[in-house]
């Protein structure tokens, strides 16, 4: 009996250690952002953000060009996600609803490009975009993020399409609806939650992307938020308050989105792999 209680205590202890390890850095980011500089630059850590200040946020937002960074990030991310969703819905319907020659080859291609090493394609993309006079132009990033996010979107949406019973469409068609009508009225509403979950993941991918934005965009007015964040360290040296205040609002939407959709997505990446 006491041995079992000992195991219980050990388990919970392990749980607490893991909890601190994973949650503390995130907490520390938010806490630092709200602390006065004197409390940040202290040899003994101040564990709570008391007293509390918003000065770092106001300083971060008032840095030059912040408006551009925010606008660029939203513009690039949303355009890429919408385009990728549009292409992916069509493809997901094809592979989820039709049997056609080449279907398996197509899915294999999607699976392969889902793990495509974009880090290794930096050079040809740079040369290509330069040739198209797209360097330092936001549409370049839209194109890149579109192709980054599309494979995963197709792969995941296909699962959602296949989860919608075929009989529902067929019933609608028996009632006289055409195939496009059956899709719009029956499949589309049922697919919407899956589309939201998948787009959120695509949004996060594009929102976080650093390397391509860093290499392809040259003017400060074309930077996205990740570039803005990375410039804090060199410009401010050790202005940790400013860095954390900039990181917090950048991170918050992503974390909230993730908490909402992660249950659907834990399986997304491996789901295909382990069925059957």
């Amino acid at each position, binding site marked *: 009996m006491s041995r079992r209680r000992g195991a219980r205590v050990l388990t919970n202890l392990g*749980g607490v250690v893991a909890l601190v390890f*994973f949650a503390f*850095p*995130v907490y*520390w*980011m938010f806490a630092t952002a709200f602390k006065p500089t004197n409390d*940040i630059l*202290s040899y003994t*850590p101040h564990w709570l953000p008391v007293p509390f200040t918003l000065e770092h946020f106001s300083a971060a937002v008032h840095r030059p060009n912040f408006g551009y960074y925010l606008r660029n990030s939203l513009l690039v991310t949303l355009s890429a996600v919408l385009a990728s969703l549009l*292409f992916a819905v*069509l493809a997901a319907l*094809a592979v989820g609803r039709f*049997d*056609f020659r080449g279907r398996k080859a197509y*899915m*294999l291609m999607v699976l*392969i*490009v889902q*793990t495509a*090493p974009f880090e*290794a*394609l*930096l*050079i*040809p993309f*740079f040369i290509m975009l330069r040739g198209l006079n797209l360097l330092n132009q936001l549409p370049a990033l839209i*194109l890149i993020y579109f192709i980054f996010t599309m494979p995963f979107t*197709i792969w995941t949406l296909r699962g959602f399409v*296949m*989860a*919608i*019973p075929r009989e529902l469409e*067929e019933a609608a*068609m*028996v009632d006289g609806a055409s*195939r496009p009508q059956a899709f719009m009225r029956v499949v589309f509403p*049922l697919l919407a*939650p899956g589309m939201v979950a998948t787009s959120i993941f695509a949004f996060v991918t594009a929102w*976080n992307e650093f*390397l391509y934005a860093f290499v392809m965009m040259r003017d400060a007015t074309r930077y996205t938020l990740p570039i803005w964040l990375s410039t804090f360290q060199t410009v401010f040296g*050790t202005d*940790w308050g400013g860095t*954390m205040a900039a*990181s917090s609002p*950048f*991170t918050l939407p*992503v*974390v909230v989105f993730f*908490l909402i959709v*992660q249950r*659907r997505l834990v*399986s997304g*990446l*491996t*789901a*295909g*792999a*382990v*069925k*059957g």
Partner: protein
Amino acid sequence: MSIGNEDLLAGARGAPATGPREVASDAASTAAAGPGRRARVVPYLLILPSVVAFVALLGYPLYQVVRISLLKLDLAELIQRTTVFVGLANYRAIFTDPFFWSVTVRTVVFTASCVALTMVLATLLALLLERLGGAMRLALSIALVLAWATPPLTATVVWQWLFDTQFGVVNWVLGAAGFGDFSNHSWFDTGLSTFAIIALIIVWQAIPFVALTLYAGLTAIPRELYEAIRVDGAGAWQTFRSLILPVLRPLFLITTFLSIIWDFKVFTQVFLVRHGGPDRQTITLSLYAYQEGIASSHFGRAAAISMVMVVMLVLALTFYIRYMLRTQEDL
């Protein structure tokens, strides 16, 4: 519609309920689709946009990286738009450069360390999650999702703050816990120590996905199997080896492959910590390609380095794809 935990386990169930295979050939769909020929064209029209995008934005760059790796393409050639084929000269140049080999070896060792750490710790966490009580398990799951969701860029910044030389929490905690005097200890002075921090950042973010996936697999193992193996007198290690390991094998393999692919090509975290420093000691292959190409304008040589990355990733990918093909019938 959400994909439940039970769906994750390989072999636990038969074919998915909705098979896409059978062509709808009943009256309803024939009537709706019109003539058979038109119906046959529809799926091709639907995949056409994505195929065009893949060819233009992935196939073509892939072709270009091969081509550029055979060119002398520095700033002069780039500006004058001249094409100078040099055959395998770029490959010869990098393969005879000792620095290239040390970068390659360190990238492989670094990847292997990150993947091994991720897999071992994630397995332990998955087992821990299964044993924890409800409230504690929920709290830990949320903490895991927090770390997973944090943008890699922010994670890098925050961990550098935690390991800050003067005011970092880690130095204070180590001192307070009696590990000696860590005040003003710099973690970024040597290549090994810097690599350790980079690995910590990557593993911190990589564990949650693997742990949650494995945990989902664990919950799908029927209770009776545990009972049965316990009746047979198996201890904890025996249970792990002869029950959990075989049942979760597919998940272990898939998450290992994915981790290898992700960690091998990682750029952001490595670059942002010290831009490859101190003294170029934390340059990995993806940083090396960036520095040779974008920063030094030796695009041909950078493309050759990229090709080495592509070939190594293709090797890892071949195992992954072969495995997926074998296990997944409704691909």
